[in-house]
């Protein structure tokens, strides 16, 4: 038999000025099952809360309705008070008499009547509430960071420094990502490698970080605090412990004509190689697709020359099975190859290059040792054209969005060129200069004012070669749309930033949403930019959208804090307001028929399959099961379920039905 206690708050005069609180308490007090009904000036005050605690004991209450302000304001307060009074906190409901009644209506009988209806509705609801226990999920305090670029490095170091274990996975042979390819960084023009390499080394040496390079995620199962991740460690054909990194093998390898990925194809590398001198780990791998031994069955020169006998031709891929509590995705971005733009001639003419190629040309460690030389003949270009938005903001042929980083790096490129080729002329074709950021616009202005980079507002229509020169046909829209033709020695395309190859595949493995451009999707565009819609998986850096280094690093630290907060408790406690699929005795097991339409509506991948087997092991029924670690309690599945086999704790079918009936019927 339900025994409900009702506490009507005056909220000073906020409620009592328009609602006759005494009448509300009295009317409600007369309802069946209401064991106690009272009014008080400030329910949220200490004496007010004590009133509730005492009444629970004194009247042996089975449910409490606090009729006061919005539950969005004080629900936690009163639920806690109930718990302290010995009542399960989920047996407490609030009737919103202030925001939804006293503040929005005039003082009259109708307002008081409405207040009574509101309270009565909550009384009917609370009668059907059940005592719920917070959901506790154990947490494995090891994080996985996928991707070893600057965002992954930052996140891994931040997590590791809070004392938790981190496993970092990087698919290429070295960490460092795109940042390791950059020459200088805007807006300070400090050397990218100089600031990055110490961090790379720190990752390798950190006692809390385990680094797996040349490794990729194979599969992910489980949920927040309890992921099971399979990682494929691709064979490096090398005993990493035996190898000293002397580099003899790489110099002796007879195959030396493989386009160097790190140099964006502007240099060559051998088949056994370390991607770049500062690589971490500084150990070679054999690129089996291009290795003479793997292609023709003989060579083995590296094995012969290796002083420590570290080469392992028959090494298989290794599958690691890891228990992970939280995942940070930091897989970065790629640049869109410009060959979708035939009018810009990228790929057809050697001296038309993309932004990353220019970075390598300008880099002191690059193929030209930092001298800007054009690829076709090694001449120093006297006249150079930079084309911004080469692919960005171009729904027709490229991508619709703004890649965000190109305005800044183009300004940087033009500046670097001017610093290296003083007598040269640099032109930038642009549409808008997007230089929001600390010291960013000043940087662009410097390029224009001090380095005299010629900014031309307009797009380029076409670029073609004639007599070894590149003819750039553009327009200056600020001169009344006048055509401009520049005879250039080299053209640099600020190609768009796009999702990393394989991002879609990884997102599917992680059950994380991604947008139409294959970038990982955040849980909320404003308030949850670091979280994904799958609890326990966080985003860092350009895997979410193109970002510059400061943004990527900030987000990476943000993701690290989210992980640290998760790891700060040994168990995860969650509100138990989750969906539940009913269970009945065999042979039905559940009224669920297993159509799994609920699975398709669930935004959190919280709906799993549960199989019931007969004694002979044969599956006799498959039904839906909610993973309460993942369910966020939206209830969309509940409304969809035709057999009414799913219900939502706290907003159950019987509860909301009772509310409708109570609200409309007077007793």
């Amino acid at each position, binding site marked *: 038999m339900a025994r409900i206690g009702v506490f009507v708050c005056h909220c000073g005069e906020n409620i009592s000025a328009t609602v006759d609180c005494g009448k509300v308490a009295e009317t409600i007090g007369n309802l069946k099952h209401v064991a106690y009904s009272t009014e008080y000036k400030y329910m949220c005050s200490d004496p007010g809360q004590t009133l509730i605690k005492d009444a629970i004991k004194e009247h042996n209450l089975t449910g409490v309705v606090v009729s006061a302000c919005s539950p969005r304001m004080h629900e936690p307060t009163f639920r806690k008070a109930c718990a302290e009074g010995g009542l399960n906190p989920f047996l407490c409901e609030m009737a919103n008499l202030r925001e939804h009644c006293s503040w929005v209506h005039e003082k009259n009988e109708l307002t008081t009547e409405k207040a009574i209806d509101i309270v009565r509705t909550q009384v009917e609801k609370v009668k059907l509430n059940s005592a719920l226990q917070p959901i506790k999920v154990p947490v494995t305090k090891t994080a996985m960071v996928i991707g070893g670029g600057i965002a992954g490095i930052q996140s891994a170091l931040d997590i590791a420094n809070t004392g938790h274990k981190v496993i970092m996975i990087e698919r290429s042979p070295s960490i460092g990502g795109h940042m390791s390819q950059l020459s200088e960084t805007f807006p300070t023009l400090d050397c990218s490698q100089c600031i990055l390499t110490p961090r790379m080394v720190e990752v390798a040496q950190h006692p809390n970080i385990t680094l797996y390079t040349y490794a990729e995620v194979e599969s992910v199962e489980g949920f927040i605090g309890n992921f099971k991740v399979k990682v494929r460690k691709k064979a490096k054909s090398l005993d990493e412990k035996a190898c000293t990194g002397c580099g003899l093998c790489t110099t002796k390898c007879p195959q030396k004509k493989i386009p160097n990925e790190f140099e964006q194809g502007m240099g060559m590398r051998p088949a056994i190689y370390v991607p770049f001198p500062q690589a971490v780990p500084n150990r070679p791998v054999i690129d089996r697709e291009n290795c003479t031994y793997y292609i023709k069955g003989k060579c083995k020169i590296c094995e012969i020359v290796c002083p420590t006998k570290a080469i392992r031709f028959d090494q298989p891929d290794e599958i690691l099975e890891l228990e992970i509590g939280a995942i940070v995705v930091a897989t970065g971005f790629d640049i869109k190859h410009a060959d979708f733009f*035939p*009018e810009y001639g990228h790929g*057809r003419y050697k001296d038309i290059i993309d932004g990353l190629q220019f970075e390598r040309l300008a880099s002191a460690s690059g193929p030209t040792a930092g001298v800007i030389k054009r690829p076709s003949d090694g001449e120093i270009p006297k006249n150079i054209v930079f084309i911004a938005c080469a692919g960005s903001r171009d729904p027709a042929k490229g991508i619709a969005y703004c890649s965000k980083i190109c305005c800044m790096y183009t300004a940087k490129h033009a500046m670097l060129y001017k610093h290296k080729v003083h007598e040269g002329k640099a032109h930038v074709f642009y549409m808008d200069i997007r230089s929001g950021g600390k010291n960013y616009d000043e940087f662009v202005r410097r390029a224009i004012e001090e380095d005299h980079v010629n900014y031309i507002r307009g797009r380029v229509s*076409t670029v073609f*070669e*004639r007599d070894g020169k590149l*003819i750039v046909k553009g327009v200056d829209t600020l001169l009344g749309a006048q055509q401009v033709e520049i005879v250039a020695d080299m053209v640099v395309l600020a190609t768009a930033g796009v999702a990393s190859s394989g991002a879609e595949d990884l997102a599917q493995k992680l059950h994380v949403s991604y947008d139409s451009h294959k970038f990982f999707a955040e849980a909320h565009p404003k308030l949850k930019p670091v979280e994904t819609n799958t609890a326990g998986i966080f985003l860092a850096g350009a895997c979410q959208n193109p970002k510059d280094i400061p943004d990527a690093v900030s987000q990476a630290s943000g993701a690290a804090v989210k992980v640290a907060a998760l790891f700060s408790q040994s168990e995860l406690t969650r509100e138990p307001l989750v969906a539940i699929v009913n269970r009945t005795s065999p042979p039905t097991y559940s009224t669920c028929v297993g159509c799994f339409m609920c699975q398709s509506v669930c935004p959190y991948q919280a709906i799993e399959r549960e199989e019931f087997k007969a004694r002979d092991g044969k599956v006799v029924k498959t039904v839906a099961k909610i993973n309460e670690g993942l369910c966020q309690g939206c209830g969309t599945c509940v409304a969809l379920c035709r057999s009414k086999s799913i219900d939502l704790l706290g907003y159950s079918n019987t509860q909301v039905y009772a509310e409708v009936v109570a609200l409309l019927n007077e007793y």
Partner: protein
Amino acid sequence: MKFGIYPGCSLTGSARDYNESVFAIAEAFGLEFTQIPDWNCCGATAAHNLNKELSLALPARILALAEKNGLEEIIVPCAACYSRLVVTQHELKKDPELKNRICEVIEMDYRGTSVILNVIEWIDKYIIPKLEEKIVKPFNHKVACYYGCLLVRPDKILNYDRAEDPQTLDIVMSKIGAAPVDYPFKTECCGAGLSISRTDIVSKLSGKIIEDAEHRGAEAIIVACPMCHSNLDMRRPDINKYWKAKYKIPVIFVTQAIGLAIGLPAEKVGLKRHFVEVKIS
């Protein structure tokens, strides 16, 4: 299946050379086509400049006549006519209401079922498979393949070659032994419909196209459009006057080049009708 041909007006007049070469190589390859009976002018630039409905109705009549005569595939050698016919087919497919209105205007049924081929598509489909064995005199020349506008644009409607740096004509030419040069003016406009009313503009634009081809060492400009041909060939005196130059590079239809390669005499493919003398063979 019956193949139809829509020659268009220029092929019966100023582009007789083109017409002769199309028929000559067709004959050489044993291909026959039926002219769409009682065909009319497609309306060209004039119609769509002045009257949209007319610019759809004239081509629609042609297509309806083709359908009526059971011509499922029509070759349209003139790039301008080709463009008008394909665009009309597209517009009427997109908008059934407009289609009904146009049917009313032309007083005929129109379903839009005919397949329209431009000259290169036709060559690709019917000539190329049998070409190699017939070549007796490879066309060993450096050439600049000039596509013009209407063969490739609007690419989303024509759905033929890509609009930038197209390749189909280059491929056909290399198959008969020619060496196409890298030619950025492939799809630049020659001035087209302004030939008579603004000869100065045509001279300017066509001059640039010719100059670049000569500059790159091409021995001939290869075209597949009678309008381009007349601007680059017949207008050569105007062009040379405008640019104070003496451009001599001949302008040859792709069908003429194929004709020469398979051993047809120059007269047979209309080369003697050119204004700019064709010395290569």
